[in-house]
């Protein structure tokens, strides 16, 4: 493998691993906050127990999310010095503001966890809101750098020199809001369906109608509402994201849709594999005219095909599969979230069929796979560029060698972290069961939120 490919593999692995925890780290605080607010509103202790247990999960997963985030931030400089030399000059603001978001999250997380019994309830809510805002802001800001990579703005490169730098113009680059919004909204989906998965699994393990079963069913309903709302919002925003691709990165859209010939009334191909030889998508389901309509709200919209671009600038053709997988997961989550709500709230059925509960068990891993597909699509679909039409990936990579050894080392470390975080979560919750927490909650005067809980 070339050093470039090794550097991409190493950084890709870091990101693929980090985003699991980063996404949960953004999504979970909203779930905890929802449970806290529900508790304040209904005074139902079960919601307080949920908030407490989810906070534990959050604290454990931060143990991986924070160090892997630190790794990601520094590997940018270590592996892509050419890229960071440009970013440092033009797009330093989001990184810098992100630091403040980290600080807010770190300060108030410690306050929420370690000072809970010494602060007033409203201060607890304020701390939690600060944690949620800090987590959300850091996701939005780092995604802004990604948005800038696709729609760079606020500088020019003349004879290899960076001139006319307008940092705030770069910050508010065209796709900032739509791209950051997509990542933020989808993080809330993941947070919700991770909870749905665990709750559904526990429902299978406990007798129907038991206290623990009801507790988990309640948690499942909360997560279906949050998950449903945010998967719908993500889909609406995703549609806008695709229209941005049409306007700003047409070859990425062409690769995503497997479109070779520029045309109006372009068809939308769902599924299948893009084949370079025949310039078509094999075994896909073709919806006539749909792509033109989706790209520009009219069938007359001319959608550019890959043949309009030199082949050296084509993104990899598997982008089509990744794009479809992402959209497929998102759509499926909308259906199962609203399906469940319909079943319980409209049809007033008191129990879910067993197969549906198994679908909910799968929903968390599915949501995580959805964001993985989305990120891999977004980053490989931008190739061969790190900054679209400005800087290539080959120009960005380090001139150092030996990346292969580092790759092996980091994979090993990620494996250790993955294994231990799962082990710790299982171990902790096996010892501290829902029943224990529910009993504690019923005893008056025992602080549920104390760091001594």
């Amino acid at each position, binding site marked *: 493998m070339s050093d470039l490919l090794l550097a991409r593999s190493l950084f890709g692995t870091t990101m693929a691993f980090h985003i699991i925890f980063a996404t949960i780290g953004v999504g979970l605080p909203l779930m905890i906050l929802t449970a806290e607010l529900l508790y304040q509103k209904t005074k139902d202790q079960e919601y307080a127990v949920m908030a407490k247990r989810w906070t534990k999960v959050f*604290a454990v997963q931060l*143990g991986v999310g924070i*160090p892997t*985030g*630190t*790794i990601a*931030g*520094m*590997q940018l*400089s*270590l*592996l892509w*010095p050419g890229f*960071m*030399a440009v*970013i440092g*000059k*033009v797009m*330093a*603001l989001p*990184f*810098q*503001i992100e*630091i*403040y978001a*980290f*600080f*807010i999250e*770190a*300060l108030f997380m*410690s*306050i929420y*966890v*370690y*000072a809970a019994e*010494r602060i007033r309830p409203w201060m607890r809510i304020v701390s939690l809101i600060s944690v949620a805002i800090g987590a959300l802001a850091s996701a939005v800001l780092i995604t802004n750098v990604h948005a800038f990579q696709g729609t760079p703005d606020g500088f020019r490169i003349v004879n290899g020199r*960076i001139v006319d*730098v307008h*940092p*705030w113009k770069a910050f508010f680059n065209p796709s900032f809001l739509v791209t950051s919004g997509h990542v933020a909204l989808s993080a809330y989906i993941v947070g919700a369906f991770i909870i749905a998965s665990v709750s559904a699994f526990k429902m299978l393990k406990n007798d129907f109608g038991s206290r623990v079963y009801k507790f988990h069913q309640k948690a499942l309903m909360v997560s279906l509402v949050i998950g449903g709302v945010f998967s719908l919002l993500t889909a609406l925003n995703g549609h806008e994201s695709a229209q941005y691709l049409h306007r700003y990165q047409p070859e990425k859209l062409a690769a995503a849709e497997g479109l070779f010939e520029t045309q109006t009334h372009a068809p939308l191909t769902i599924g299948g594999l893009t084949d370079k030889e025949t310039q078509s998508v094999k075994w896909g389901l073709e919806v006539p005219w749909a792509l033109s309509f989706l790209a520009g709200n009219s069938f007359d919209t001319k959608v550019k095909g890959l043949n309009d671009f030199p082949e050296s600038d084509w993104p990899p053709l598997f982008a089509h599969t990744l794009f479809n997988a992402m959209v497929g997961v998102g759509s499926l989550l909308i259906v199962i979230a609203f399906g469940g709500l319909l079943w319980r709230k409209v049809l007033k059925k008191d129990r879910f069929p067993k197969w549906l509960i198994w679908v909910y068990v799968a929903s968390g891993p599915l949501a995580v796979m959805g964001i993985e597909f989305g990120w891999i699509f977004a980053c490989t679909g931008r190739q061969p560029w790190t900054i679209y039409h400005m800087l290539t990936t080959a120009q960005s990579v*380090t*001139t*150092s060698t*030996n*990346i292969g050894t*580092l790759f092996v*080392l*980091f994979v090993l*470390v990620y494996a*250790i*972290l993955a294994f*231990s*975080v799962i*082990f*710790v979560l299982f*171990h*902790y919750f096996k010892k501290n069961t829902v029943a224990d927490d529910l009993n504690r909650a019923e005893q008056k005067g025992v602080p549920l939120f*104390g*760091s*001594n809980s």
Partner: protein
Amino acid sequence: MSDVYLAVTILWGFVFIYAVMATMDFGAGFWSMIYINHAKTKATTVANRYLSPTWEVTNTFIVALVVAVYSMFPKGAYTLGTVLLIPGSLILILLAIRSAFLVFSHFVEEYEKILVYISGITGILIPGLLISVLPITHGNYVYVIGGKETLDLAGLFSSPNEYAFFGFAISSTLFLSSLLLADYSKASEELDAYKVYRRDAIILGPISLLMAVFIMLTLRTESSWLYNKMMDNFPFLLLSLLFFLIGGLGLFLPSGKVKGKPRLAVIAVTLQYLAASYVYGRAHLPYIVYPYVTVHSAFTDPSSFHAVFIMYIAGFVILFPGFIYFWSLFMNDKRYLRRKRADQSPE
């Protein structure tokens, strides 16, 4: 002050703040490991009481530091990023294991000891590797061949100066953290723990001072340009020594039930390091990596710097009350400091 010097002052400020916080952080982790079998003194309890709420905040400072380098000196980040690939990756790997296992150790009591050992040992190595960035920037082991910058790792690790820095980092980590924990124990009224940490500080103070002298001796032969420029500010080095002596005095002054005013010692020793790092930093100018990269050649676009600088001020104004609140809850609240062992959290 010109933009460039303003920028490098901010960067130096971040380096100093992180250095002090990191020594306390990694040191506290190490002490909590050392005294894990001495439950009676509560030395481990005190170390964890400090460490649990602060490690995440400390970790944010290292990210802030790296971001400050690439947002203010992108060309410097380019060269440092290139030559630090191997040592930087090692630091990251150790940091990941250390942070994760530190968190995990609070959740699985059965495996607490082994996790504390792993995080304590990986943690104490990190300052040694982090400080190695300094001798690397002295440029003796950085080569430019055909426009490609490379680091001669074998050369670096055969240099006595590198080991002087390494030893200085580890002894300073233990010295500063034992001082801080002595102060923290006293505020918590854990007098047994206080005695333990006071003793450690008394042993480690002279060792870290010797290490500093060792750095100067090796620097004289290996990077005489830096040595000579540091000696131009000899009075500041003497001032640093004076603060060291005041710090030492702080540990022996009579005060109530037990000997010593550790708060005075912590402040004096922090000033000692501040004075010394000022001398070092000033002598290092204008080079970021000698002799290839200077603060002038590495400086970012001026309009970018202005935007960044304004955000630094805005960020400081927004965050300052948060830090004060945090400090009042965890460093200055008697309810937190003096709670009984029974309330100790498995967080």
